[in-house]
């Protein structure tokens, strides 16, 4: 996982609530056994007018000109601004993989589906929870200002608007530590092999029926 550094990024507004992981990456693309290559199918059924199947050459697809990610002014966007309960639904990690593969690095919303939120952090995608009124304000500013960019500073837990307004956000200290340092969580947990082994031994004695497959 790459270290999450401070950056200034273009914002793309996706004005819908309850965007589920089926919409983020439809099921036909989950048949891959790899972690890469999902970006071309991000929001596939909204982004293209023709039905998408795995292995299609993206150059032959018909993009939906109405879909916000296809608009020229948002090309190169790195920050997705959206509404409540983003990433609800299935546990597919293909959703953050697709978002990152597309080139987005931050999602700002009033709330997130919990599994999606966790999956994002583990892959270096930063989900920022912001009050609905602030999200509203950012939507208004993004729509009114072509080329609207935000500065994302995870270290200081701060988003800065083009006119210098700062918005603080909350982030779990452990998540922050892992993101800033690009840490492999499994490696961290394996520091506690002794504790896990001791816990397991006691468990095996007290509830032997749990160790039975």
């Amino acid at each position, binding site marked *: 996982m790459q270290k999450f550094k401070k950056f200034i990024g273009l914002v793309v507004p996706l004005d*819908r609530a309850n965007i589920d992981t089926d919409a983020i990456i439809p099921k036909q693309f989950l048949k891959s056994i790899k972690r890469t290559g999902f970006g071309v199918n991000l929001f596939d059924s909204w982004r293209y007018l023709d039905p998408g199947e795995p292995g299609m050459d993206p150059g032959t697809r018909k993009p939906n000109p109405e879909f916000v990610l296809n608009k020229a002014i948002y090309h190169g966007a790195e920050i997705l601004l959206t509404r409540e309960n983003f990433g609800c639904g299935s546990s597919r990690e293909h959703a953050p993989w697709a978002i990152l593969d597309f080139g987005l690095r931050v999602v700002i919303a009033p709330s997130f589906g919990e*599994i999606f939120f966790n999956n994002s952090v583990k892959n270096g995608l930063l989900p920022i929870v912001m009050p609905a009124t602030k999200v509203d304000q950012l939507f208004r500013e993004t729509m009114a200002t072509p080329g609207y960019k935000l500065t994302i500073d995870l270290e200081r837990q701060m988003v800065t608007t083009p006119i210098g307004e700062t918005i603080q956000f909350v982030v779990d200290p452990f998540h922050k530590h892992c993101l800033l340092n690009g840490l492999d969580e499994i490696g961290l*947990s394996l520091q*506690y092999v002794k504790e896990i082994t001791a816990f*397991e031994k006691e468990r095996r004695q007290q509830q032997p029926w749990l160790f039975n497959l």
Partner: protein
Amino acid sequence: MSTAATLYDKLWRSHVVREDGDGTALLYIDRHLVHEVTSPQAFEGLRLNGRKLWRVDSILATADHNVPTTERSHGIVDPISRLQVDTLDQNCQEYGVTEFAMNDSRQGIVHVIGPEQGATLPGMTVVCGDSHTSTHGAFAALAFGIGTSEVEHVMATQCLTTKKTKNMQIVVDGTLEDGITAKDIILAIIGKIGTAGGTGYTIEYAGSAIRALSMEGRMTICNMSIEAGARAGAVAVDDTTINYIKGRPYAPQGERWEQAVTYWRTLTSDADAHFDKVVTLDVRDIKPQITWGTSPEMVSTIDGHVPDPAQETDPVKRMGIERALAYMDLAPNTAMRDIWLDKIFIGSCTNSRIEDLRSAANVVAGKHIAKNIKLAMIVPGSGLVKRQAETEGLDKIFKEAGFEWREPGCSMCLGMNDDKLAPGERCASTSNRNFEGRQGAGGRTHLVSPQMAAAAAIAGHFIDVNEVKN
């Protein structure tokens, strides 16, 4: 501070290996269920990093998402699906993982076979790379869905790094009337609290109506906790729980059984335990539920109507309703019973257990599906559910009524195999998600109970199941 604990508090505490000052804990995982879609990248991660599988006897694997529900003797035709299923078989073989492969009689939907085998037991932590892992909470287990990185984490460490959630109790009291099922209860709950209502909580379902439910019914309720935003839902242990588990293949026996039961009986919330949020419902107020939109909270009743967005004052919600009605091709104020259907799907980890099939068979016995129904299919949750249903003659009832009787799997709940809706087709489905494109690009899903799906198959449109039965 009171020492009284909720069921969730007890389950949490008994699995904490270590905890940091900020509440980040290393939580021990007892049971890891694995399927073909969310595991290949995790096995690959282990290999790339030269890591071992921590405890192979904690894992039970099966192929369910991609498998065909028609004739299987020639394998899987779609090469991409086949590769994913073959990859699971190879990984299980290489690591020595217990797997019920496609042609094993015990194969089925991962959330059906865990409980069926006694591989899900009270007091366990149960995880799976699948959001409907919440199903197993019906056994007073702490069960939740995880992503592929977490699958790999559990494989390598037998633990997860996580934080405790808040406690929510949903109390459902009253006696269930004919035609009202666990599915109607959970849809009514989601309609009441919303799809983000449970975010940040573990839900414990309690009350006389929950106590009166079978394990199948409790599983249906816990299954859809995730549609209410909660990663986990649970029900306390009682005689119903114990009786269901007794004699199952992986359940303890003899002296160990007695020992286990004594412990399991403690897995209830203390009388004065604190819940951060309490929601109450009376089942007498619950009617047969049907979703009309593209989110499970967009739900009405058989005597209800599709909403009118003009009546909604919140602009984000209004836009949501307008989009949903456009996608579903429904006019505002349409009576739910005037919605006509093309397909019927009875199956999924929500409603594919023997009790679900019995209740649907009871509705369609001696009748035939309506002319406008292009396809009505029954997809049992496992090979063993299928066999049991056949022993009881349910397959004949369904076939005589015009239903197709299929092989077990996830099937048209998400259409990763060939079972899909065509664009514009409308389906009464016993599954759990009515998202856009969920059952096939452009397909339109209405979530209902097995009885209501069966009644809709006979009438061709939604109808109160009691009208069909009489």
